[in-house]
């Protein structure tokens, strides 16, 4: 009954891959969403997006992936609108699922349609387990032991295994390392080399950045390297982890990015109304993704005045 591992924890391969592909020279990596997705997301990839749908989420990159129609994606499924858009566009083949829903606003109609029709390959996890799996990859070890998920159907429908601790004899859940083919993280500021600084909670940004073979950063603001160097302790993701830097102001719209802008509640409500039916969802994708050439175009469609009203008042 255990779910298959959607992405095997090939730690030796990961080391070799990082050594060969991660450029440790200071190279400018600033590029458009289109170029970043074209170069670093492939059909069949295992991908993940931090933090989640309505919170500091790289939705401009998600929308570009939908625009380019990347196929047969496998997904770290901790999300809301991010997961919805990809699933509704028919781009997702399998998911390590921990939570897909709208909290205050209820269930995801898109996930419901996909699961109730039986079309998705799923493994179940908890939020802690999925983050610890990325942490294992970040540590360069094939698994981490944990004390959650034990005894439940969540465990039975995951790919975790029960192990006995050789020191104490305790029973633990062994969580296999999760190595992403491509991770995408939205940050407050980055320089052109990919030195990234975040404000507020860090969610699982640090773990995902270090668990990804390829890493796309979208940033609210591109800053001078001198600004990064003034507060190096704020750098959560150093340049040598990063493959692409995309400038994406309001990149998390209709979600929030803390201290900068709030959720666009009317847009989220309209989205949920649209998502309630397959036709509604199709027209949402058409209107907000396929009709826009790029993120700048999307922001124009949302409207400058509306975006200005969302800015956090401090």
């Amino acid at each position, binding site marked *: 009954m255990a779910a298959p591992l959607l992405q095997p924890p090939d730690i030796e391969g990961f080391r070799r891959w990082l050594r060969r592909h991660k450029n440790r020279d200071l190279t400018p990596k600033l590029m458009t969403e289109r170029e970043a997705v074209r170069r670093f997301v492939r059909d069949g990839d295992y991908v993940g997006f931090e933090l989640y749908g*309505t919170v500091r989420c790289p939705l401009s990159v998600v929308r570009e992936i939908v625009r380019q129609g990347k196929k047969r994606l496998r997904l770290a499924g901790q999300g809301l609108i991010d997961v919805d858009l990809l699933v509704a566009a028919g781009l997702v083949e399998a998911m390590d699922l921990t939570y897909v829903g709208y909290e205050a606003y209820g269930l995801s109609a898109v996930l419901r349609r996909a699961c109730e029709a039986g079309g998705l390959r799923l493994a179940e996890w908890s939020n802690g387990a999925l983050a610890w799996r990325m942490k294992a990859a970040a540590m360069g070890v094939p698994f981490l032991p944990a004390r959650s998920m034990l005894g439940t159907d969540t465990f039975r429908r995951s790919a975790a295994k029960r192990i006995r601790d050789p020191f104490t004899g305790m029973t633990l859940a062994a969580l296999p390392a999760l190595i992403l083919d491509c991770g995408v993280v939205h940050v407050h500021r980055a320089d052109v080399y990919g030195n990234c600084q975040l404000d507020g*909670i860090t969610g699982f940004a640090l773990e995902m950045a270090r668990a990804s073979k390829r890493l796309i950063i979208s940033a609210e603001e591109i800053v001078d390297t001198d600004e990064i160097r003034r507060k190096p302790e704020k750098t959560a993701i150093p340049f040598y982890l990063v493959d692409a830097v995309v400038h994406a102001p309001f990149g998390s719209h209709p979600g929030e990015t803390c201290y900068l802008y709030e959720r666009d509640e009317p847009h989220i409500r309209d989205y949920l109304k649209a998502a309630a039916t397959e036709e509604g969802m199709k027209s949402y994708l058409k209107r907000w993704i396929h009709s826009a050439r790029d993120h700048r175009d999307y922001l124009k469609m949302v409207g400058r005045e509306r975006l200005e009203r969302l800015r956090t008042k401090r």
Partner: protein
Amino acid sequence: MSRVQYSAAEMLACLAARQMKGRTTVFIGTGVPMLAAALAKRLYAPELLPVFEFGGIGSTLDRLPLGVGESRTFDRAFAALGLCDVMETAQRGLIEEGFLGGAQIDPFGNLNTTAIGRYRRPSVRLPGSGGGNEVASLCWSTIILMRHERKRFVPRVDFLTSPGYLGGPHGRRRAGLPEDTGPRLVITDLCFFDFEPNSKRLRLAALNPGVGVEDVERETGFPFCVAARLARNAPPTPRELRLLRRQIDPGGVFRR
């Protein structure tokens, strides 16, 4: 006594808020637990330390969060950390009590938030565990908040997402979960259940205003025993309701 009107969610929020005491670390899930924590901070436990799974530690809860990762979960907080840190803090034993809910609950306090019906072709696909499994596995105790309906109180959950006492008194130990942990209370819009110490099954402990044992029986899909001394919960006070409606959730996001 005047008849004050209130919703089921308001009743749950008030009853849960009264359970949050002193300077305790509480793990807050999405929904009614947020209302309860916001109410508790204003009325019963100003020094309560709410912890949210994506890293918010000690928010003032001046503004009601709509989600567990939102900026409101770290409004003027002591710390804004990350998901692993919070879950590891719970795993180390530093989080006293967790508050969570579910679509289904069984006699041992096991919760389903994953799927109704058969897993592979569910009749309703629910969101999944989220942080619920860690809250239920790793906090010293948990308080479960439920709408009391027969379809929710079932002999066997369709999918066991987050652990109560699993199969009975030794379930958690056998599974390898931390010792001396587990749910201590189920709060519903009809009553309180605690857990009978030997069987670890739900036991009716208190009734809400205007509710009789037979009302609880009608809405519960399995037999339960009744405490020798059945307590009576006080209804929401005008002060609690005023705070919930005017200050905490004027838009009625979670209250309705």
